[in-house]
């Protein structure tokens, strides 16, 4: 599944954030949305997730020639800082993404354990999510992305607040996610920008 952008623009009142964005986000590749703060990266991600509508233009998810509007059934959003259920275990936190997809608890837990293994958090499965560091929370969010079985993964500033080692780890994991899904990342980070297959720069679209 790839994403088609047709003359997309986002404004808040009279203030135009960006406009005239056209092109495609290729299937199963890592696309980086770059631009300074306030350039509309998160707003575009929200539109790609189907949470908000672009002010003008059209976004379509394309699969086998069929076009459909963005929907949270197709995309999962990994927010900046990763939201968690702090009193519940890391495993439970990942499992909610599988449970929300209609899996039974046992199967959801099995998949979540496998995903935690992939993101290197298997040993932390039983601890409370509230005790995780920023880097670990990002990896938890990625594990959620893995078990959600969505074809589009949208990550908002996944490297924000992380040290160099964790940024490298997160970048590598995001690349791994492209084996399962189309990945779009809103980022300021040069490391992420360099590992991306495709870059959309919002800087010159205002």
């Amino acid at each position, binding site marked *: 599944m790839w994403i088609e952008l047709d003359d997309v623009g986002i404004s808040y009142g009279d203030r135009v954030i960006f406009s005239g964005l056209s092109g495609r986000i290729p299937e199963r590749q890592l696309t980086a949305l770059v631009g300074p703060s306030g350039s509309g990266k998160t707003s575009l991600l929200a539109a790609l997730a189907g949470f908000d509508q672009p002010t003008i233009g059209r976004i379509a998810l394309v699969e086998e020639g069929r076009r459909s509007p963005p929907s*949270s059934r197709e995309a999962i959003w990994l927010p*900046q800082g990763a939201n968690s259920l702090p009193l519940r275990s890391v495993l439970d936190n990942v499992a909610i993404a599988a449970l929300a997809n209609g*899996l039974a608890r046992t199967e959801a837990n099995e998949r979540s354990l496998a995903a935690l293994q992939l993101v290197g958090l298997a040993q932390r499965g039983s601890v409370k999510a509230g005790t995780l560091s920023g880097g670990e929370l990002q990896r938890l969010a990625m594990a959620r992305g893995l078990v959600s079985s969505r074809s589009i993964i949208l990550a908002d500033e996944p490297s924000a607040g992380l040290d160099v080692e964790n940024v490298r780890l997160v970048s590598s994991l995001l690349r791994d996610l492209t084996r399962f899904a189309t990945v779009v990342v809103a980022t300021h980070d040069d490391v992420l920008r360099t590992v991306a297959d495709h870059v959309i720069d919002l800087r010159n679209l205002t």
Partner: protein
Amino acid sequence: MNGRWRTGAIFDEARRNALLWRSRQSIAIAVSILLGLGLALTSASDWHTLSRNIESLDLRGRNVLIAQATDPASPAEISIASCEATSELLAVERAGAVVALDSTNVTQLGPRVPLVGVSPSLLPELDHVAAVVGSSLGLAPGDITLVVEGEVLTARVGQPQPEAFGLNSAVAVRVPFTTTWTRQCVIELGDSESVTRQAALISAQLRTDGGDIAVTPYVNETFDILQAFGSRPTRWVPLGFGLLGLILGGALLSMRSSELAAYRLSGTSRRDLVILLAAEQALLAGVTVAFGSFGCVIALLVVPTMPLTTLLWPWVTGLTSLVGFWFVAYFATRRSPAVLARDR
């Protein structure tokens, strides 16, 4: 995979969230327990107070009507047969004539003890014994033998009677067979009967001779104790506690924006999230209902006058908090997940 939570999984998730014995959730559980027990305590206290007030009024003669001459200067008499016949009325608990007799010497009580003739329809003990000794005369309760003017009588020391009967400080015997008219007929109505309405009906039933008679309540209540009970402020406690539960649930929800975002951003639909939150609140409401019902059952055993409808109180509280919370959850989840995610 269908993009929706399974029903079993969503309720299991609610159980895991709601019944966490940690942090803020333990406060919610503790408050739910306290609300339930508070309901039972409030209800028991209300009924205990009402029972005490009614008992106190009963001892004076609440719901007792006295039929006697309107004007003491023009004496009127009432047929004892018609007076006793009023005890057959549905609204009447017991009724009968009270006739003052000469005071007498009682060996066990001393000289000049007041003696009254009473209809057995008013004092049923007189069907079993010859005399009933008033409870205020200082003898221990139970059956005794009484020596009145040298004559031996079987007697019973009676239970306290309403002050209106005038029997607690006297020895009561049956009205002599030769006496067929009385100046005073005493009628005790059922607890929930209207005194004014029954007074008019009973007045019409009595056969009289001489001047006019009036049927009047012995105790002039300045307010209707049952009506006052029905309009007591604490009757709103189940609703009030329900609103308290709702406010608590709403406050906890406002602290959980990040958690709501975690669910929404993990693919949980808004509808499923509302069901999850409502199920969590239902579990807390269930704790209130369980503890409230348990408390009410205990209260019913301690205060037997409490009506069984008290058992509905915890349900009113639980349903109020649940229905109210459903609206709160419905609006709380309207916010975009992207906005919820930023609201930490």
